């Protein structure tokens, strides 16, 4: 499976103007659905690659992290997780995947600072695996995945499940309490003010 978006934005992240209209019950439903969607993509029993042709801001980077590989454009596009600046934690699953993908030190830098990085820096720290010109990006992603897809699926699925196992077990043990922590942050008054300012940029 190849996950793709647009050439300006792979994804700008959460639709803040829309989500800030939701009351706690509706936001809770959305957040648990989003969390489940991320988990379903992460545990897809197929090889997956994200073709990042545009900016992958916050939730955009989170979507990309659910894939086995991330291939990005050679154009100057931004990735990163700025949640801390908005007063909310990164979704627990994304935090776990990020640490496994880039290592604890780089993940900590990204999460604590909340700064965006360009694709060159993302390649350097291992957040993306390869960089291509936009016109070749999806083609290369398809080639990479098609090659892996020729392997017997039983073996691949078992190997992938082994890779995901530690994260899956931690996620299943803690995701409910982590989701509630996120929602508590989201609905705190100072954070609502920060989110409202950020929503004006949409």
């Amino acid at each position, binding site marked *: *499976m*190849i*996950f*793709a*978006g*647009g050439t*300006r*934005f*792979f*994804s*700008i*992240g*959460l*639709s*803040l103007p*829309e*989500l800030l209209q939701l009351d706690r019950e509706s936001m809770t439903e*959305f957040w648990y*659905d*989003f969390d*489940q*969607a991320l*988990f*379903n*993509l992460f*545990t*897809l*029993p*197929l090889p997956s690659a994200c073709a990042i042709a545009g900016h992958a801001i916050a*939730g*955009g980077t989170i*979507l990309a992290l659910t894939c086995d590989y991330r291939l990005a454009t050679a154009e100057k596009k931004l990735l990163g997780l700025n949640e801390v600046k908005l007063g909310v934690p990164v979704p627990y699953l994304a935090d776990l995947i990020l640490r496994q993908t880039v290592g604890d030190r780089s993940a900590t830098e990204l999460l604590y600072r909340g700064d965006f990085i360009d694709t060159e820096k993302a390649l350097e720290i291992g957040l993306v695996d390869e960089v291509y010109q936009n016109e070749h990006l*999806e083609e290369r992603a*398809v080639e990479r*995945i*098609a090659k892996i*897809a*020729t392997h017997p*699926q*039983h073996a691949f*699925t*078992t190997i992938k*499940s082994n890779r995901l196992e530690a994260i*899956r077990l931690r996620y299943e043990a803690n995701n409910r309490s982590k989701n509630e922590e996120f929602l508590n942050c989201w609905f705190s008054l100072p954070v609502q003010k920060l989110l409202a300012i950020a929503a004006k940029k*949409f």
Partner: protein
Amino acid sequence: MQKISIEDKGAVAILRLTNGVTNAIGPELVKDLSIASTQIRHDFCRWDPIFQYRFESS
């Protein structure tokens, strides 16, 4: 699905976000993500004994 498309490239599916220029993540896009991942599992997974339980229980 309005916010996501699935393109069949033989052995590979392309799941493409189609929610305007920004592909902002809201309730409709998340609903479509869920439908799309279900469809891809159904159409492209030939063997899924390890994940099937987790998937069905979600």
